[in-house]
């Protein structure tokens, strides 16, 4: 399994760059992962979504899909796309250091 050094910390990642061990994550890693995806700076709104993703992951074992995020996070789907262009659920999960949401089967 590949190891990536993010913000000075070596972390395990999969081939798509998602952290495979969410416990290795910290705020600095989130900022660096966001910067790599073109999100700079991380605003309070970005943090709200990222923290929500982590809480959902911890409670349910999987990150929410974009529609569930829109219904439960307090951030509308439209705004989610402004904050995390292209794929909010996927991108926010990556920055939050959790696996890619598996909602789509």
């Amino acid at each position, binding site marked *: 399994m590949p190891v990536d050094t993010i913000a000075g910390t070596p972390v395990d990642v999969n081939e798509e760059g998602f952290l495979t061990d969410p416990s290795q994550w910290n705020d600095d890693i989130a900022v660096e992962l966001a910067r790599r995806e073109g999100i700079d700076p991380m605003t309070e709104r970005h943090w709200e979504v990222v923290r929500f993703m982590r809480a959902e992951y911890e409670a349910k074992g999987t990150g929410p*899909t974009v*529609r*569930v995020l829109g*219904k439960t996070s307090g951030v509308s*789907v*439209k705004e989610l*796309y402004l904050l995390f*262009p292209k794929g909010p659920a996927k991108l926010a999960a990556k920055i939050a250091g959790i696996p890619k949401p598996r*909602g*789509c089967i």
Partner: protein
Amino acid sequence: MHQIVILGGGTGGTLTANRLRRVYGWDEARITVVDQDDAHVYQPGLLFVPFGLTHPEDIVRPRGRQLRPGIEYRTTGVDHVATERHEVVLGDGATLPYDVLVVATGSVLAPEETEGLTGPGWMERVFTFYTPEGAAGLEAALAGFDHGRLVVNVVEMPIKCPVAPLEFCFLADWFLRQRGVRDAVELTYVTPLDGAFTKPVAAARLGGMLAERGIELVTEFNTGEVDGAAGRLVSYDEREIAFDLAVVIPAHNGAPCIGRSPGLGDALGFVPTDQHTLQSTVAPEVFAVGDAASLPISKAGSVTHFEGEVLVENVQRYLAGKPLDASYDGHANCFIETGFHKAMLIDFNYEVEPLPGHFPAEVGLPLMKESHLNHLGKLMFQWVYWHSLLPGRDIPGIHSAMPTAGKKQPVDA
């Protein structure tokens, strides 16, 4: 006497009720099935309606008639489930107490959740084939469609039968060729996924089959708006796709009565369920089967069928105070109609993606390969559904656990 209440008289509710009725004597369990209407739709048949290959009246039968004698059937709405009191509150305020509740309420379409989808053009140039009315309306629209842009769009996962929209594309290609107008039609498949399907080997195979047929594939398109008046889909990231005729598969939710039941459903109204035992994680006496369950596997009739065996075993074990059997492996099995009287078969579970080979063993139907035999299998399945699957009879050679005998395992690099 055990009180077993089953919400929903579709695939999951019917086969569960019939199997339970066979294992419990009439004096051992009272089994009640509740549904809001008496129309049981053979849902795989909906795909064929737009092409005139079947008709809505040929795929609908009364729900009550699919149930064995000794099963009480009630046609009534459900207001909500009071899980802490172990009772179902019906639409008229009456209550049904239960020792075990099986939630088999399926999924419902939510076209109203997509901006503009039910606005101008809905049922005129924007259709879904996921309802009998929509499929019939689409049949009329397709009959007169001889040039322009036909767009097939999946709004959001999960949906029932994730291969059905692809099958629609393949059949549309065949249908338009038969009529000699294929060259005048641009056919486009628009999906929120990053490929034609979720599982890598099947996604590559199905993507190749779209390309062979000249069907354009647009991926990672998250539909934010359907503008029927102007004829365009608009994504949340502001991409646009023009259409003359759109076939849209709307977002799905769990049944509204689940949403009205405190603590029973998740954000979309599906019941959080253990993926191996089918016991809900909400309350030990509540089980869920089929589309109603929130599981990481396709919402499909085959899944429901394979879950049924494990579910029925576990209802008995729960009522007997025994540990549950955690043996459901996520087995799914789908015939993919590919046009020109051929179909492809895929077979997979939670862990193993669809692989080539044969089903259910080395001598059997070809997997991941188009064949006439699979097409016949798909057509024959309607008979199997009414006469074997719903009554809860075992189908010879077909079991809940996914078979591996005839499959070609990938070689690890």
